[in-house]
């Protein structure tokens, strides 16, 4: 029955609904450029969410943890072998996302008898000599979107748009790590709250449209305080000034505490 084109389209669309449902509760990830490199921030619940892929490439994702693990290993293995075979300079995010991860995700998404990856990924790359820095967001259907300065992934498309809007209202160029971390956390709240509200609206069809969420900073900090009862801030940087070839490191608890000290 699936040999009829429209049936196939219908099946793919069902898949889209199913995956979006699964991703809805995901904790957003915010990627930002700051004065010494690139920053990835999220709030996790036990599972680690930001990873080192190669010397200058980091990865973060929302979705099913087994799928995240599979694609993370694929990215790490591919980058490691390529970096060894020729040179670490030949390992680039563009090659990883466009030639390896993107096609793989798309293929499994459209192979409607197999299982699809339930995942959205946000990857970051620190360029050489200040050129070619940037973020790439990969969607569950294999499409990708890139931005040199900022990128987000969240549970729903609307949440991502709201986060993008919140970010673009702020000037992020040349900010310190602490300032950028604060902005990223506020942005996280914007996306997280909207995602929650949409989930509620879905489960209760009769409910009115959710109340308008404001982006008043005080209120955002308050929501964050509540979320930190159960969640933990996780951040990673690709740091230009780091002396080793490998530029990735996780943020220390001191750095995180400094950023949220005034809000607690």
């Amino acid at each position, binding site marked *: 029955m699936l040999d009829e084109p429209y049936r196939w389209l219908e099946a793919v669309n069902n898949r889209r609904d199913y995956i979006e449902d699964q991703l809805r509760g995901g904790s957003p990830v915010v990627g930002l450029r700051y004065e010494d490199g690139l920053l990835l921030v999220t709030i996790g619940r036990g599972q680690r969410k930001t*990873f080192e892929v190669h010397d200058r490439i980091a990865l973060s994702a929302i979705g099913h943890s087994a799928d995240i693990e599979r694609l993370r*290993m694929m990215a790490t*293995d591919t980058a490691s*072998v390529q*970096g*060894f075979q020729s040179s670490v300079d030949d390992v680039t995010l563009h090659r990883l996302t466009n030639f390896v991860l993107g096609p793989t995700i798309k293929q499994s998404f459209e192979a409607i008898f197999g299982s699809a990856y339930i995942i959205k990924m946000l990857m970051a790359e620190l360029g050489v000599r200040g050129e070619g820095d940037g973020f790439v967001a990969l969607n569950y259907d294999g499409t990708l979107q890139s931005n040199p300065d900022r990128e987000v992934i969240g549970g729903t498309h609307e949440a991502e748009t709201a986060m993008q809007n919140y970010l673009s209202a702020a000037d992020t160029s040349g900010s310190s790590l602490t300032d950028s971390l604060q902005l990223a956390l506020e942005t996280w709240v914007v996306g997280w709250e909207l995602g929650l509200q949409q989930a509620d609206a879905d489960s209760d069809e009769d409910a009115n449209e959710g109340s308008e969420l404001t982006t008043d900073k005080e209120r955002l900090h308050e929501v964050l305080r509540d979320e930190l009862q159960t969640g933990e801030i996780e951040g990673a940087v690709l740091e230009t000034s780091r002396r080793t070839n490998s530029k990735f490191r996780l943020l220390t608890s001191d750095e995180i505490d400094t950023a949220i000290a005034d809000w607690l």
Partner: protein
Amino acid sequence: MTNHKGNFLDLLKANECQIQLDLPATSGNGAAPAIQETEGTTVLAVRYKDGVLIGGDRRATAGNVVMYDRADKLLQIDEHSVLAIAGSPAMAYEMARVLEHSFQYFRRSQLQELSLEGKLRTLSRLIRENLPMTLQGIGGVIPIFAVYDLLNEDENGGKIFFYDALGAHFESADFATSGSGSVWIRGILFYQNRWGEKPLADMDEQEATVTVLRLLDAAAEYDSATSGYNPKSNIYPTVKTITKDGIQDLSVERLQEIYAESVETTYAR
């Protein structure tokens, strides 16, 4: 996709990516190799007050021909380990490269640092896999592996390991030497450590550097495959320290100073 559990060598093999160390042995007939291999070296590591200080000369030779006078034989593998190579550079550089990528791959894939024991075993495996080449008389590598062990409960986490051609590793309490020039200085180090003004472990960075530079000079005096310092071309031995803060190169300016103060002056007496 298979899970290689952090083992980089297995990952390379699964990707049919051959490393030089895997080269099969040709049918050896016991005769001397027909090609002159590039080799010859003096490298040494001493355990001093803050960790490990490690030094190496710069010469690479093939027979009695000087191939290269700016070779760097102290290779940083990660933030707290250095491989000092002696023997065939082709194999040694490849070994260092595999080692560096192996440690990184383990950390990135398994989300934890490879343990010190795990690092030592990885190097053992590489040396063992290189055995066919070593037995043919070309391609042998006998390295020193020096680390600062952050998990060490002792005050000084500096550790020095040396290997035999079959890949066995041994920890040395005070110092280790390798390369063709090492025979000339091993006894001096023993003497200095036992009856010198101060044992090596009590020396500060300056004192340990003076000792290492003097020993490299002594090795260069007797071993044609070891270079001394060459002020005309501004070529000095390389010296690195490994402490809890990481790895530091001693600058050429610093080495120049120490040479002028403590290595050359003794000649003039």
